[in-house]
């Protein structure tokens, strides 16, 4: 969304210039917000108003503003964004602007430049020659990089839930409760996921090992097979326990199907990790036929982009796990372009970490048995996430059920099968 502020004064009510300008904005696909209006008390007093005009593209806005100028509108010129050089690698200049996860623009000359990606807790590196503004983390700052400071010349476009209330993300607030009618919400969510896929958006799944422990792995596999997962962010544990189950049928030594303990089952996850290390990684293990089932195997087979970020308590870790958290975060950020739906399931730390990287415009749902996880995510800035307090297994079972049902409906809708001639 591109925004300009205009000022208008004169006998704009008697002349019908104000309604004309507002009509012109709307009829050309723009929108407006009257920021201020001072109506003259006497007949001869001038009326003054300030209006925020917004539109979807810079070209459309240029054209619109040119037309509004003909009717006397004057553009309130924003001061340009103030830039200061980064004093050292990894250090922002004092008073650097700290981003939110909302769409943000910086003023460069006569233009508003969108800051990409929309990601919270970053600084804004500006390249005036390339007319580029990038949200950068500490680790990406290089000495001399030109960083936005202060608040002048910076605009944030608040993310708003659409008014037409079509989907679950539109009508639900993110209040956390285990008392919500989950089935209806999950059905809506399934529709949202299908819509996202059809529109060419990417679906991101962030999952903790609970997915495997609770026996929900097979549902996630189904989603992967049906093409509803494009990216998977997780840690060492999900992969280790998924592979443990694939190789030994247990998760943390417990047979997932029977719920009974395996003899010496506590060794299984270590043996699974060792097997992957010996094979040269998960991908290799799949390719050589060692790993024949499970979530990770499906990810490799179906081209899901995987980032496994390590933590201090990891066993192993698996060869694919990125143990440098800064590198892991970079790898995750690099994959977020085009993500429109994010499912954050059964992991507090990964959910918060990914929530911090997501733009507010990404439709995010956080599913956890612990209400505090959902609350925490919202409190840490990912306010747009919807919360669902439930066990992962029934959630994913129902979601994949609706997704499968939906794709059957879609194929039925496609009409009768063609009869070969």
């Amino acid at each position, binding site marked *: 969304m591109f925004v300009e502020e205009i000022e208008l004064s004169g006998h704009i009510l008697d*002349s*019908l210039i104000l*309604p004309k300008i507002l009509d012109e904005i709307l009829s050309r696909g723009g929108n407006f917000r009257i920021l201020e209006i001072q109506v003259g008390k006497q*007949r*001869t007093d*001038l009326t003054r108003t300030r209006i925020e005009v917004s539109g979807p593209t810079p070209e459309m806005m240029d054209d619109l503003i040119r037309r509004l100028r003909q*009717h006397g509108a004057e553009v309130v010129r924003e001061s340009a964004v103030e830039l200061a050089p980064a004093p050292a690698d990894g250090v922002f200049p004092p008073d650097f602007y700290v981003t939110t996860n909302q769409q943000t623009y910086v003023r460069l000359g006569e233009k508003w430049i969108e800051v990409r990606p929309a990601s919270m807790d970053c600084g804004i590196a500006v390249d005036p020659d390339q007319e580029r503004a990038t949200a950068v983390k500490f680790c990406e700052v290089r000495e001399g990089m030109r960083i936005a400071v202060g608040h002048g010349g910076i605009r944030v476009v608040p993310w708003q839930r659409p008014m037409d209330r079509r989907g679950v993300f539109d009508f639900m607030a993110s209040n956390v409760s285990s008392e919500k009618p989950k089935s209806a919400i999950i059905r809506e969510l399934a529709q949202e996921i299908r819509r996202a896929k059809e529109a060419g958006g990417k679906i991101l799944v962030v999952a903790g090992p609970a997915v495997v422990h609770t026996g929900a792995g097979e549902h996630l596999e189904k989603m992967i097979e049906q093409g509803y997962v494009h990216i998977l962010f997780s840690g060492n544990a999900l992969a280790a326990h998924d592979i443990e189950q694939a190789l030994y049928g247990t998760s943390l030594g417990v047979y997932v199907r029977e719920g009974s303990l395996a003899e010496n089952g506590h060794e299984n996850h270590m043996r699974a990790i060792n097997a992957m290390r010996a094979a040269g990684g998960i991908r290799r293990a799949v390719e050589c036929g060692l790993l024949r089932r499970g979530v990770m195997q499906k990810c490799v087979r179906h081209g899901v982009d995987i980032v496994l970020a390590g933590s201090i308590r990891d066993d192993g870790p698996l060869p694919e796990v990125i143990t440098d958290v800064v590198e892991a975060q970079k790898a995750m950020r690099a994959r977020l372009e085009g993500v429109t739906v994010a499912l954050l399931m059964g992991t507090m730390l990964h959910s918060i970490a990914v929530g911090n990287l997501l733009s507010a415009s990404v439709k995010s749902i956080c599913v956890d048995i612990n209400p505090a996880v959902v609350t925490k995510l919202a409190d840490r800035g990912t306010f747009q996430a919807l919360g669902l307090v439930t066990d992962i297994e029934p959630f994913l079972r129902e979601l994949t059920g609706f997704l499968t049902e939906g794709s059957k409906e879609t194929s039925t809708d496609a009409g009768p099968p063609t009869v070969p001639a």
Partner: protein
Amino acid sequence: MRVLLLCPPDHYGIEYEINPWMHRGRDAMPEVARAQWKGLRDKLEELDARIELVAPQPGLPDMVFTANAGLVAGQRFIRSSFRYKERRGEAAHFQRWFEEHGYEVIALPPELFFEGEGDALFCGDVLFCGYRFRSEIRSHRRLAEILGCLAVSVELVDERFYHLDTCFCPLPDGGAFWFPGAFDEYGQRAIRDHCGSLIEVRLDEALCFGSNAVVLDRDIVVPEGCPRLVEALGGRGYRCHALPMTEFIKAGGACKCLTLYLPAK
């Protein structure tokens, strides 16, 4: 008695093209133009108007259209700021005339185009102001501030009627005659909201510059070729005096364009 400023057509001719009426290949006939201008002057004097003359200048053929010199309010003269460079040379000559005649001259910023009575006409206490082809709407706000009046801005949308005085003529009873098609719908509504009874000029008569008339109380001097308008005005008790204006219409002007009211109301 109304006082009017005119400029003899000694240097008048079609030397450039700055509106759809002008074609260099279709120049005005000097003798006929002189006769038509004299006819107008004589008629205005006959109707008891006092005529003041500003000296014509070589190289400024449109100076004959004194309505575009500026706007006169009491002893103040708000000088025009011409959009086209071809006419900008006129401003200094008009300014000198007004200074010599004891007027306070007010100049708008040069980038704030304003073409005088051509685009600003009082109807009662309301100053109607045209914009888009010549004057800038921003100049209207300045006029309202200087004159302390309500200035209703109306957008002109038909280039053939590039000045307000080519399509709108106020009457002393608070009404006006006009060609609505020259305005956008907002301008039409604004005029209907702020004017008394309106007489619509048909397109064919509007193209004969029927709205470009000089109103002297109950007498109205109009170009020839507008019999329906003359009849309608007659029905309202106005006496119309139709004059040939063909040579000035070639430049996009007629009776009113050749006349500046001293003062505007």
